[in-house]
C-alpha cells in the first residue's frame, strides 16, 4: 500500500473532502501507486538486490479437510522412495517437509501442485505401470495391509536425466515470478541456455527447490551460490578486499557481493561495452557514499576526480551516449582489477607504486617508470598533492583570466563610451552649424521674422 495514500486516508480534512470527491482521491491513489513502483524500479545501473518476492498464493481448494499435500506426503515422506531416470541415474524422491515449511513458500501456503502442476492425479499420470495398489499396500497373507511408509521403492521417471527434470519443473516458477523471469530474459545465463548449454543456471540452481530461503540471508551466501559454478572467480574474490571483509562479517552490508556488481536476474556479460562503461556508476554508487566510506577510511573523492580526468570523462560520455560503444579509456576495474581488487595500500594491489607501471602498460604500451607519475592518484590538486597544478589553477583562476579579461572589458567600456559621446558631439555640432547657416539664410528674408 502506498504510504501517501494511507496518509491521505487518515487525514480528516481529506476524508471530508473524500466524501465529496472520493473518486478523485481514488484516481490520485491509482496514479501514485504506479509512480512508486516506477520510482523503485528505475535505478541507474547500480544494482540493488531484489526484494523478497511475495508471490500471490494460489487459492487452495480445500475439498477435503486434510491438507492438500496429504496425498503427496504418503509417498514423498518416505526416505527410501527413489526415482530412476532414463539414463539409469537414481534420485531420492524424499521431500523434507520441515525444510519446505521453513522456506519462503511454506508459510505462504503453497501446495505441491503449485509448482508441480502436471502431477494432479494419484498415482501420477500418465499412469505408472510400476505402481499398483499393492506396491504400497502390502499384501500380507491375502489381506490388504497398512500403508508402509518406509518401503524401499524405486520408480522409473519420465525424464531423460536429472537436468531434464529440473528444467521442466523450473517452468513453474514463471507463473508467479513473472518479473524476475522477464529480467532474466536477456541475461548471460539465459543466453547460454539458448545457445545449447543446458547446464546454464535456472531459478532452482541458485534459489534451491523445496528449501527456498529469502535471498541474501546472509549476504555471504550469494557469493557461495555463484561460486558453485564460478569457482576460480569465487576463490579470487574471497581474497580481495571486498571478499575478505565479507568473510570477516557474513552480514556486512557495505561490501559488494557478486550480484551487486553483476546484477541479479539480469546478469550481463562483463565483457559487454555497456558493462565496461557502467562500471563507473556501479563502483561510484558505493565509493561516493561518505557514510559508507568513512567506516573504512576510504576517500570519496575518487569518483569525482576520476570523472574530472581524461579516462573518466571519456568513459562517462560513452556511458551517457548509451550507444553500446565501448570506450577505449580505462574504467575502474582496468586499473584496480576485478575480483582480485585490493586496497590501494595493499602490496598486492595493482595500483601501488611498484605495480602501477605494469598496470599502465596494459594499455599504454612502452610506458616508462616516469609515466605513472602523471596520475595524481584520485587526489584533487592541492598544494600538497600537485603544487604546480594548484599554482596554475590559482594564477589563472584568480589572476590572469579575471585580470586580463576584466582589463579588456574596462578598456572596451571606456572606449565605447568615448566613441558614443564623440559621435553625439559631432552630431550636435553639425546641427548647430546647420542652424547657424539656415539662420543666416533666413536673415535676409523679412517674411520669416515673427516680430
Amino acid at each position, binding site marked *: 500500500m502506498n504510504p501517501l495514500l494511507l496518509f491521505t486516508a487518515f487525514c480528516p480534512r481529506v476524508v471530508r473532502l473524500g466524501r465529496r470527491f472520493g473518486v478523485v482521491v481514488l484516481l490520485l491513489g491509482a496514479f501514485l501507486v504506479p509512480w512508486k513502483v516506477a520510482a523503485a524500479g528505475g535505478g541507474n545501473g547500480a544494482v540493488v538486490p531484489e526484494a523478497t518476492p511475495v508471490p500471490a498464493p494460489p487459492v487452495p481448494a480445500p475439498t477435503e479437510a486434510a491438507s492438500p499435500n496429504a496425498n503427496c506426503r504418503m509417498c514423498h515422506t518416505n526416505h527410501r522412495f527413489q526415482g530412476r531416470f532414463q539414463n539409469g541415474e537414481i534420485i531420492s524422491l524424499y521431500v523434507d517437509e520441515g525444510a519446505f515449511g521453513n522456506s519462503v513458500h511454506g508459510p505462504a501456503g503453497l501446495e505441491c501442485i503449485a509448482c508441480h502442476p502436471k502431477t494432479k492425479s494419484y498415482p501420477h499420470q500418465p499412469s505408472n505401470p510400476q505402481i499398483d495398489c499393492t506396491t504400497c499396500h502390502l499384501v500380507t497373507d491375502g489381506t490388504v495391509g497398512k500403508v508402509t511408509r518406509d518401503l524401499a521403492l524405486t520408480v522409473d521417471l519420465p525424464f531423460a536425466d536429472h537436468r531434464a527434470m529440473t528444467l521442466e519443473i523450473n517452468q513453474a516458477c514463471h507463473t508467479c515470478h513473472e518479473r524476475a523471469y522477464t529480467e532474466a530474459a536477456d541475461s548471460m545465463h539465459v543466453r547460454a541456455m539458448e545457445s545449447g548449454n543446458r547446464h546454464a543456471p535456472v531459478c532452482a540452481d541458485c534459489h534451491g527447490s523445496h528449501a527456498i530461503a529469502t535471498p541474501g540471508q546472509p549476504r555471504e551466501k550469494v557469493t557461495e551460490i555463484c561460486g558453485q559454478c564460478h569457482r576460480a572467480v569465487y576463490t579470487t574474490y574471497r581474497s580481495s578486499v571486498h571478499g575478505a571483509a565479507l568473510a570477516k562479517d557474513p552480514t556486512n552490508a557495505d561490501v559488494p557481493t557478486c550480484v551487486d556488481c553483476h546484477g541479479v536476474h539480469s546478469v550481463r556479460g562483463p565483457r559487454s561495452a555497456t558493462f565496461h562503461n557502467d562500471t563507473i556508476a556501479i563502483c561510484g554508487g558505493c565509493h561516493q557514499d561518505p557514510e559508507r566510506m568513512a567506516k573504512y577510511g576510504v576517500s570519496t573523492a575518487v569518483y569525482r576526480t576520476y570523472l574530472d580526468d581524461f579516462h573518466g570523462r*571519456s568513459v562517462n560520455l560513452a556511458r551517457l*551516449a548509451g550507444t553500446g560503444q565501448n570506450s577505449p579509456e580505462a574504467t575502474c576495474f582496468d586499473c584496480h582489477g576485478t575480483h582480485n581488487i585490493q586496497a590501494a595500500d595493499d602490496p598486492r594491489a595493482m595500483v601501488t607504486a611498484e605495480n602501477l607501471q605494469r598496470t599502465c602498460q596494459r594499455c599504454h604500451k612502452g610506458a616508462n617508470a*616516469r609515466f605513472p607519475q602523471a596520475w595524481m592518484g584520485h587526489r584533487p590538486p592541492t598544494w600538497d598533492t600537485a603544487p604546480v597544478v594548484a599554482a*596554475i589553477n590559482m594564477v589563472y583562476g584568480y589572476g*590572469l583570466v579575471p585580470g586580463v579579461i576584466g582589463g*579588456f572589458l574596462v578598456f572596451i567600456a*571606456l572606449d565605447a563610451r568615448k566613441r558614443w559621446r564623440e559621435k553625439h558631439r559631432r552630431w550636435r555640432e553639425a546641427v548647430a552649424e546647420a542652424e547657424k547657416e539656415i539662420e543666416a539664410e533666413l536673415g535676409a528674408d523679412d517674411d520669416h521674422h515673427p516680430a
Partner: protein
Amino acid sequence: MTITQRNRPRPPRRRTRQAPRPEAEEVDRIAIKRRLLLQRLREAEALAARIQELPDGSRVFLRFGKAERYQHFVLMATFATLAVTGLLQHFSRYLWVALTINALGGVEALRTVHHVAAVLLIAVSLYHVWRIAELWFVKRQRGAMWPQLQDFLNLFQMVKYNLGLATTPPLQERFAIEEKMEYWALLWGQTVMVITGLIMWFPIAATKALPGGAIPVSRALHAWEAILATLAILTWHVYHVHLKVHNWSIFTGYMSEEEMLEEHPLEYRRILAAREMVAKIREELAALESGKAGGRKPGPPAPAAATPEVQTQAAPPA
C-alpha cells in the same frame, strides 16, 4: 610581409685588432650611393604600390597580402574548431555539454577533429615562423609587429583620451597597440597550447624526456589557456574588429582611405610620402647615372639629407 622599417645597420663588430682602413680614394662612393638609392627606391615603390585607385576615384590601401589573409583564415577556422571541440571536452561534467558532445558524434570523434585542426594550426604557425625567420635573417628587418616604447605610450594616451584627460587619440602606425597586444598574446598562448597539447597527445613519448607530472600540468595549462584565449577573442577581438567598426580588411585585403586615416594615420602618411619620393629618387638615380657616364671621378658622397627619410615614424607628411 610588408616592409615598414628601414634596414637597420648591424652594430659594428668589436675587433681587437683594427684592420688597416682603406684609403678614401679606393672606395667607390658612387656605387655605394647607387646601391643605397636603389634600395630605398624598392622600399618606396613597395609602399606606393599599396595605393589602389578605384574607378569611382576613391582610393583603397592594401593592408594584408594574400599570405596574411590565408594565414588568418586558417587560424580563424582552426581556432574556432579547437575552441569548440576542446572546451566541450573540458566542461563535459555538465550534462548539457555531455549531451551536446554525444549529439556531435561522441567524444572520440570530437578528439579526432581536435587533433586534425591542431595539426593544421601547427602547420600554419610553422609557416608564419618561417616567414618571420625570413624577415629577420634574410631581409634583416624586424617587422611591423615588433613592440616599441611608442606603443605603450599610445596605450596610455588612448586610456587618457577615453577618460577625457587628453584631447586627441594617439596616432597609430601600421599595427596599432590593440593589434600588437592581440598578436603577442596569441603568439604566447599558441606556444603554450602547442607544447602542452603535444604532451597530452603523446604522453608516453613526453615522459621519455619530462617527469610524469608534466602531463597534469599540461592539462591544467591547456585548459586555462584555452579559456583565456577564447574569452580574449570574444571580448578584445570581437570589439575591435566587429563592434567598434566592422573591419573587413583581413578578408578583402584593402582598407578605405577613411579607415586608414582613422585607425592608422601614421602609416597613411608614410604611404603617401613614399609615392612622392619614388619620382625624386628616380631623378637622383638618373643624375647619378649621367654623372658616371660623363666620366666623373668618384668623389665625396652626396649629402645624406638629399634623400629624405622615407620610412621612419617621424617622417613628416610630404
